[in-house]
Structure formats: structure tokens, C-alpha cells
């Protein structure tokens, strides 16, 4: 059979949640959900979405934060001035 990446399971769960909570037949019954469960699913969904969809972005951000620290410590005094420069150049 074909090889499945680890994240396939996560994607499948996201796809399931996308469907069963948001799609499907809606009849005029009641929606009954355990409140404790709602917190649970949102917490785990956030974690899931972070792992599946934004892992790359998180990597990029942490690299950028690293660069930012270097840039700021190397050139703290010039910073205010150049930010104003940048604001002016954008305003034009």
C-alpha cells in the first residue's frame, strides 16, 4: 500500500472536524454538545492546526525573531531613526 506521512492522520482529523461540525444535514432538531467537550476539542484543534498548517510559519517566525534580536542589539541606537525613515518612505 502507499506510504502515509505522519501528518496524514492529523489532516484526516481536521478534515473530519471540518465536516461533522460544520457540514452535513441540518434538521430542526437540537444541537446537544457537552460543554466540557467543546473546550477539549478547541484546545486539541488549535494544537492540530498549529502542527499541520503553521509548522512552517512557526519555523520562519522563530528564525526571524533570532534575526531581530541580533539586529536590535547590534544597532539599537540607529533603530529609532531608521524606523522613522521607513515610516516616511512608506508615507510618500
Amino acid at each position: 500500500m502507499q506510504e502515509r506521512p505522519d501528518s496524514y492522520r492529523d489532516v484526516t482529523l481536521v478534515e473530519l472536524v471540518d465536516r461533522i461540525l460544520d457540514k452535513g444535514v441540518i434538521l430542526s432538531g437540537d444541537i446537544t454538545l457537552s460543554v466540557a467537550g467543546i473546550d477539549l476539542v478547541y484546545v486539541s484543534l488549535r494544537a492540530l492546526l498549529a502542527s499541520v498548517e503553521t509548522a512552517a510559519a512557526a519555523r520562519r517566525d522563530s528564525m526571524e525573531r533570532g534575526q531581530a534580536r541580533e539586529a536590535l542589539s547590534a544597532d539599537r541606537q540607529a533603530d529609532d531613526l531608521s524606523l522613522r525613515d521607513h515610516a516616511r518612505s512608506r508615507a510618500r
Partner: protein
Amino acid sequence: MIYLYAITHDLELDELSGLSGLGTAPLDAAAVEGLTAVFNEVSSDVVRLDETTMWRHERVIEALMERHPVLPVRFGTTFSDPEALSVALADRRSALGASLEKVAGKVELGVRAIREGSPEDDPGTIETTPTTGRDYILNRVREHRLREAGAAEARRTLQPLHHELERLSSDVRARWSVSPDTLLAAAYLVDEDRVEDFRMAVDRAGKERRDVRIFCTGPWPPYNFVDFKADGGGGTLGTLS
């Protein structure tokens, strides 16, 4: 109260014997004007939004789907008693019947294209290390623009696959740019005998890409294709948003 899983037709009660849903009560079926509703008796505390419970809901519908056209019902739908359910079904009898006909012999397949990549393999990354705060900010602005351009380019390059999959489908619901990294999240309504062709098309496209991972999930019950209001035209155009 009773918990509703799916609407189908021509179901024999003994087909439900091996299946279990939420809670412990056996599944039951009610016939209403040519439709069959599959449900069981539950207490409200078993309708929990957690992974196991969501899969229990899903598994019941998937089992029914093997032998019948089904309309999956949204998770958490309950009625006080079978009479309330019968009234709700009778109210929408014709729309539900038409939906059942539309999905007969078809399944839903999901495609999700997720952008991959770190600054190193991002073609737009600026490599010079900033020496001033101003350079740093300018670099970030440039990087942001290039990343946006990269995402737009990636979406554009996904179009041929989307069109190929559209041709293999009788209906489509596509959402583009769901998040910065999810370029496409789409559902396709596909004939059962075209599922393998569909999967192969996705696999082929996925192997050609290093910048995007393309996942094909399913077959799902046709959750995305039971929305009667959206069915007006019956066309195969996805929503581009």
C-alpha cells in the same frame, strides 16, 4: 432523547445489528415517507466533542454508506423523541429525497494542499543579514511580499490539478487560501468507480511538488453536498473565495 446519524432509504433493520454509535443503546431506524433515519437513544452527557466520539458518529455513517446512499447529519443533532424526528423529516422530505438521489453511487473526497518550506528553500528569502534595524524592517517587508507572491504562485500552479479533479467529479466545493499555509481545502463528489483515478491524479501531482504537500482524504460521506440551498444551479463550479 434520540441522536440522529444519517438519512438513507431501503434499509433493513438487521443491517444495523453489528454497529454501535454514541452511548450503549443499539441503533434503530425509522421510516418516514420513503426516507429512513438512523438513530439511537442517548443521554446528553455522551454527546461529547472529543475525537473518539466524533469518530463514532462518523463510523456509523461510513458503515451505512457501504450499502446505501446516505445523507450524513451534522454532529450533535438530537430530538426529544422519534415523533419530533418524523416531523422534521416530513417537513423536508422532497429536498432530502433529491439530495439522496444526487449522492447515490458517489462519495466525497477531500483534498488539502498545505504549503511547505522554510526560509532556506523559499525562493523569495532575502539572504543578507541586516546590520541596521532599518535594513531588518525592509527585509521583512520584502520577505512578506515575496511570500505572498509565492503563495499566489502556488495557488496558480494548483489550478491544473483542481481542474483535472473537477473533471473527475460531479460537484465541487473548493476553498482557496484557508490560512497562510493551507492553499486549498476542497471537497469533490466522485463516482465510486472513479475514486482510484482521482487518488492517482492527486498522488501524481503531489510527487511533482516539493513546495506543497497535497493530501487526499476519504472516501467521506457526502457532508459537503447535502446543503440544499447551495444546490440551485447543479453546476460543477467551485466557490473561489
